[in-house]
């Protein structure tokens, strides 16, 4: 019990749990912003996994840190783009519910 923070499996479990929460939110949320929040959780789960493997298994521990930085930059870009899409959609439809955006009958 006292070696929990020095085991790879603990971190992998945390990453899997964050990923699961993200998938849960993506399916459950009826609005675009809720889905955006859940997508951030998915990215965080992936980052935690990368960092765990980086700490315990990588011969060169800078690789995972740089990749996690890359993921963070992508997440920031994604949040900015998603926000502008949400604003544009709200302006045209007066709603950001996924149920209302069915012009293509998807």
């Amino acid at each position, binding site marked *: 019990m006292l070696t929990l923070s020095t085991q790879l499996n603990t971190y*992998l479990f945390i990453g*899997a*749990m964050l990923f699961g*929460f993200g998938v849960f939110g993506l399916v459950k949320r009826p609005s675009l912003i809720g889905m955006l929040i859940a997508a951030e959780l998915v990215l965080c789960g992936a980052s935690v996994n990368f960092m765990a493997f980086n*700490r315990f298994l990588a011969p060169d521990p*800078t690789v995972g840190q740089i990749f996690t930085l890359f993921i963070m930059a*992508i997440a*920031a870009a994604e949040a*900015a783009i998603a926000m502008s899409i949400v604003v544009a959609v709200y302006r045209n439809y007066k709603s950001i519910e996924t*149920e209302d955006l069915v012009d293509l009958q998807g």
Partner: protein
Amino acid sequence: MNISISPDLVPILREGIFLGLVVVTVFGAMLSTLAKRMTRAVLGLVVCFLGIAGIYYFLNSPFLALMQLLIYVGAVAITICFAIMLAEPDEMKMAAKTPGLAGPFAALLGGAVTWVLASTAMSAQWMAPAVKINEGSVKQVGESLLTTYSMVFELVSIVLLVAILGSVVVASYGRDKEEC
């Protein structure tokens, strides 16, 4: 000031802090997926990010912990706050319209994904490296970011530039129509 802690107490303290961080992370994730109001969901996301920053600290990377605070808590969460202010999502009203099966189905799916990922990770045999060529300190991260992985550095710059310009263009789309 010199605080001395007996060596027996150190692992207990360490594990206590670690478990606290894990609880904070899971609580934040639950709040951000289950909260009815969107502002509370963003607050949950911030709490979750704070916990993850602490976990990065445990993974020998204080640099990434600070970056997590700066980029995620400082930039991403604030961006989502702006999206909420500009689009005023009313999840209370939406929840009444959505079919009742969405929640249980989502919980089932999320649980299944977690279970599959976790059980795969636990049952796999991971091989520890024979030798570590460096410690992954901030200095070494900076050096390899500007030598071996300089392409990544440049790509990130271009991606961020394109994202900023693209979001300005997309957000301004349809603005003229409103005025007439």
